[in-house]
């Protein structure tokens, strides 16, 4: 059970949150400009890194905000959490 620092509500149990996958994946501005392969890359391909990862989480049973979590996928240590567009906050 991870302890996750919601940037708005503070530290809460993982069970209040929903995982949203890898962060920093932007929807292409003009999807039609992308080839099928490029679109498939946006759609399906994720880096699945071992170690430091940036991912998004939603405080689903709390303030319902999405935010960014920097988490180590080996140790599960959380280095920092950020609002979607803001400064980091260490747990």
């Amino acid at each position, binding site marked *: *059970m*991870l*302890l996750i620092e919601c940037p708005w509500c503070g530290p809460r*149990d993982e069970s209040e949150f*929903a995982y*949203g996958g890898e962060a920093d994946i*932007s*929807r292409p501005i003009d*999807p*039609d400009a*992308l080839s*099928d392969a490029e*679109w*498939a890359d946006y*759609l399906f391909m994720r880096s699945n890194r071992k170690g430091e990862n940036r991912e*998004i989480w*939603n405080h*689903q049973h709390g303030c*319902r*905000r*999405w935010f960014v979590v920097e988490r180590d996928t080996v*140790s*599960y240590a*959380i280095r920092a959490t950020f609002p*979607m*567009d803001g400064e980091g906050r260490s747990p």
Partner: protein
Amino acid sequence: MSQAFRLPVGGRIRRDEPLEFTFNGRTLSGFAGDTLASALLANGCRVVGRSFKYHRPRGIMAAGAEEPNAIVQVGRGQHAEPNLKATQVELQAGLEARSVRGWPSVNFDLGRINDRLGGVLAAGFYYKTFMSSAGSWHRSERFIRRAAGLGWAPTGSDPDRYESRNAHCDVLVVGAGPAGLSAARSAALAGARVLLVDDQPELGGALLACRDTIDRMPAKDWLAAQAAFLEAQPRVRVLRRCTAFGYHDHNFLSLVQHDLTDHAVVQRLWRVRAKQVVLAQGAFERSLVFPNNDLPGVMLASAVSTYIRRYAVRPGCQLVVFTNNDSGYQAAIDWLEAGGQVEAIVDCRDDVRGDLPRTAQSMGARILTGTVVAGARGRSGLRSVEVAPAAGSGVARQKLQCDVLAMSGGWNPAVHLHSQSGGRNQWQPEPACFTPGNPVQAAVSAGACNGVFGLRECLAQGHQAGQEAARRWGFEPAFDEASEAPAMQSGALMPLWRVPEMRGRLAASKQFIDYQNDTTLSDLRLALREGFEHIEHIKRYTALGFGTDQGKMGNINGMALVAEGLGKTIPEVGTTTFRPPFTPVRFGACAGGDVGDLYEPVRKTPLHEWQVENGAPFEVVGQWLRAHYYPHEGEDLETAVCRECLATRASVGIMDASTLGKIDVSGPDAETFLERLYTHDIARMSVGRCAYGVMLGEDGMVMDDGVMARLGPERFYVTTTTGGAANVLSWMELWLQTEWPDLQVRLTSLTETWSTIALAGPNSRQVLRAMGCDVDLEPEAFPFMTTRTARLENEPVRLFRISFSGELAYEINVRSDRADFMWRRAMAAGAAFGITPYGTETMHVLRAEKGFIIVGQDTDGSVTPVDLGMNWMMSKSKDYIGRRSLARPDCVRPGRKQWVGFRSLDDRTVVREGSQLVQGDTLEPPVPLLGHVSSSYFSACLGYPIALGLLNDGKRRHGEELLAVDAGGGRTRVRVVAPVFYDPEGERQHA
């Protein structure tokens, strides 16, 4: 029966509280403060069970969680609990216990024959049985299960009650021995909120059997003072009978507490988030490996001391101690003080000079240095041991009479929780054990579980750990000092993983490493001969370390012997993975109170009461209870649904649609936002218009659908499927917050704020009129797919003229607290038209007659709107989520599954939902599966069964005949037809 082995004085038992209990049907007595194990020993029960494979008689070896042999079934009927360790069962009046093994009885066991047939059941027996010819396991299973005997579980549901609680603390201290008590005290003095947990009924751990002094007072007085101090601290909570069994991420630990004081709840699961953790669980003594080391009477030395000093039980008369370190001498000292005879102390070391050996010697014990126990003898219990020189020196080979052998092979720190937390362990050559490496979470190990075994050192380390934990969480430690015990000299341990091989009968005798699984030295050697090298493989091949004790006693010996066989060092072989739980935990404790009716939340609509009054059976949809149908006297589901369908299409029906998800989407950018999420053109919707909307995933697959209404230039009212309500709101928030934070949109869930009453059928307009509707209901004034605010029965409502049945229909949205009133008034107003309440089943039939999909029933995440024939509602003038994916090669390939209808050729058979569609009759493999039936009903209005589903290239197959095959093998010939059966022109809904 008298307690022949109970000492006349001493111990921590309460002699003024005698208790009667039964073991294997015999009535015995003990005292409050006993465990089942100590009471059995007091009564002279040497054989308490049979071993797993060989059915050898076994006795109690240990005094705690590491006990491998004394596995019992406690209680009877539904309260029975299998596979408990007698050493952990607190004695209670009327306790009923039985051995889980031994058939027909522990003293005469037919399975003993396995002992002679050892070769058949050697290492890898299970593995080979599973992996060889397919039927082998099935042939052997019944025999093995009965013979192995792992206790028997009650067949009904668990009548006991459990609860779970959350707790937070600054410092969690696990274990209340000398180190844990010191840590709890120093952390508490520093001001920290402390949670101290211990698995025993009383605090103290090793101190409960300790004869030393601390702070110049007897250990038991010091213990009483510490316990009193901690209990008096407002910021300290002490949990007894509480085992920390799991150390999870981010300092989250799970504990299970047995509650014998409050019989309403038998066990309590604590979920603890600790800022800092002090691990002080102590250590387990190691057994020694020698021939017949499993005879009843062979015990751990520390257990012998514990039974004497804590429980006032001396489990025999003549003792031999076999040790490779000083701590084994304590058993001899305690035995002598308790009036027993010590035949000899057999020490494999040549050089013995610690304080304990000196004390034992001064009390008259004979010490045989450089000597080992070469083997034990006896049939149903220990009669004698044979001693021999360890190497060159030592006494000549000879026999020593004894009925108890106290063995000590050194100590294994309880690194379980540290390992579970992600920490590694490191091998310490001195004193030959694994100790915790650097903590990876906010934890510190102290005392014996950290490889420190002297009382003085444990007190000091615990004190320091408590201060350190408090300091790390920002508390200033107080100027208190560690408690002190006298310094002790002790000699070094000499690792002894097995004794030298002897000639004669003992050479053929089994030498047990893992007692609970009957894993022997020769099993390990066989595994090595067969090429197993990795310790995890050897574990699975030989069963070393499986079982309810999880190798607490035998694992390290096993690893050392594997290392010896492979010519490697112990750290090179390494340990197997430590996983929760530390000791077995009941499923009931994990489930807590979340069972039966409380397993999952139940959502009821504001109209629930009326539905109950009117005899509706309920269907669970998501978490909602929805009325399934409304049977009249003598009706079953089928006849009720036929009546409801016919009445609705002929006059008017009424349904509770309150479970639909409802979201208010408002703000200057509401239109832009919805344009991006739904496939149809939102901008074209004028205020007051409704539209059917489909939402896609970015992969182009249908995710949810519903009707949305434009209530104003910047305000929309969006409905979702019942099951999708929460997901859709999260999905909207995801895009708003992550991708388009520039959009000014507010989302409000109104699912429970508004209730929805659907009126469907040609007379629905008349019912609204009869309810005093204040808006013009004529088709020109209030056309299909529009919405109006209105007053009904003088209450403000919002009316939607939309239809999920294909009839003239309205949905009344009313404040939930007025829903029941409104429904009852509608029933009264509709009485003149024979208004008929209908449930979800009729709703399904009516929508299927119209070919309307149910997301999640007719779609499964692999269906595009094009597959469903919804091209008409997909905008070509804007981008929306999922649109680009519809042009992916897989979405445009020919042959995709498409939405079609089916008619049974016999016009009688209702095809089972889930049936697969195939061509031809033979079903000779391979049979290509062409699609499946997702919805199927008997249509009372049409007079024949109808079905819907997805079929490869379905749009072009209308008219084809196929075979529908269900999971039970039923076959129905069907014809592919268009997926609209009723009123294909849609005239009725526009009436």
